[in-house]
């Protein structure tokens, strides 16, 4: 703990008591916020894992026929691409984040002479692109929540390691000093009184 300059006055003691009272009231709030953020981040991470598993499952399901996507006749990439990911702002654990709504696709109509497998490939790609877009939104949410978590943790540490101990120390030291001063005043008064009697 760094040394601090203390004013040994009753006003300062009252000020430090107020700081201690506020800090002790705020600390549980920040601790609760830290827990809430950690739990929200964990929940979002689990959702990301679930989506990744769904992507993997789709990929596995397509494995038996994925070779057809190498078809030299068709450039399937021209049939579908992401135009925009639509999100809406929501408050998660007190933080404003963007929640995934849907993906707006740019799709080229499939011609009658287009091989039939292209329809299946477009469905698969649609699904995978939606899931990927949702993952990106969730990852951005985690970044924002982690930034907030860092700030909240810094505050918890500040209250735990600085504000509360400093205020307690200041109150103790001021109390001791004020007691010493009082004793000294009484002793001085007694000495003065005794000297006056002798005279």
């Amino acid at each position, binding site marked *: 703990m760094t040394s601090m300059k203390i004013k040994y006055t009753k006003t300062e003691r009252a000020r430090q008591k107020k700081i201690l009272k506020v800090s002790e009231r705020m600390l549980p709030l920040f601790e609760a916020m830290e827990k809430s953020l950690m739990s929200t981040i964990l929940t979002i991470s689990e959702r990301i894992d679930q989506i990744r598993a769904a992507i993997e499952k789709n*990929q596995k399901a*397509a*494995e*038996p*026929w*994925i*070779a*057809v*996507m*190498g*078809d*030299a*006749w068709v450039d*399937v*990439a021209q049939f*579908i*691409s992401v135009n925009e990911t639509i999100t809406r702002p929501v408050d998660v654990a007190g933080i404003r984040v963007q929640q995934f709504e849907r993906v707006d696709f740019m799709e080229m109509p*499939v011609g*009658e*002479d287009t*091989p*039939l*497998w292209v*329809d*299946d*490939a477009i469905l*698969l*790609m649609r699904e*995978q*692109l939606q899931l*990927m877009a949702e993952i990106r939104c969730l990852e951005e949410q985690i970044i924002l929540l982690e930034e907030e978590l860092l700030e909240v943790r810094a505050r918890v540490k500040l209250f735990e390691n600085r504000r509360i101990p400093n205020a307690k120390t200041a109150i103790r030291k001021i109390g001791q000093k004020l007691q010493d001063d009082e004793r000294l005043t009484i002793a001085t008064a007694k000495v003065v009184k005794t000297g006056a009697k002798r005279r």
Partner: protein
Amino acid sequence: MCSLPSLSFGQSPPIKLEEFTSIAKSQLSAKSYKMLEHVSIQYMENNSKKGKLKSVTALLDDLQQDLSDIRKARAQNRQPRPAQLPGSVLETNPLDREKQIMQWQWEKLDAIESGKTFTFNEVIVYKLKLQLLWRLHSFNAERGAQVLASVVHPAERKED
């Protein structure tokens, strides 16, 4: 035709399309070569509905009508009823379905050239069969996975 390797469905293409074209150019008349140039198993031009290409165009039309019916049935959530394609194409995965469709085309081409040895028809059918073999040869799992990845992870592909 005797100088060209024989073709069978499912085999690796024994000759490049460019090589075939070059041989055809050297051995066919200008008019026949021009006609051959415009023949493709992928699509047929509207002016090919008469003469030697009539049967090939009919084959492609039949296929297109069946594909169109299958697509409509999917959109209307009903059971498709293809008129020409075997019903088994509806029960398999997209790769096997495409292979079955190609095999059906192959068999139809066999029927078209049957009994027409050493004719221009045989040359046309040879080209179409060769195109089918090259298409079949392009079905490759590794390449397919790359194509899928290039659509699903376009940014990652650019970074690579």
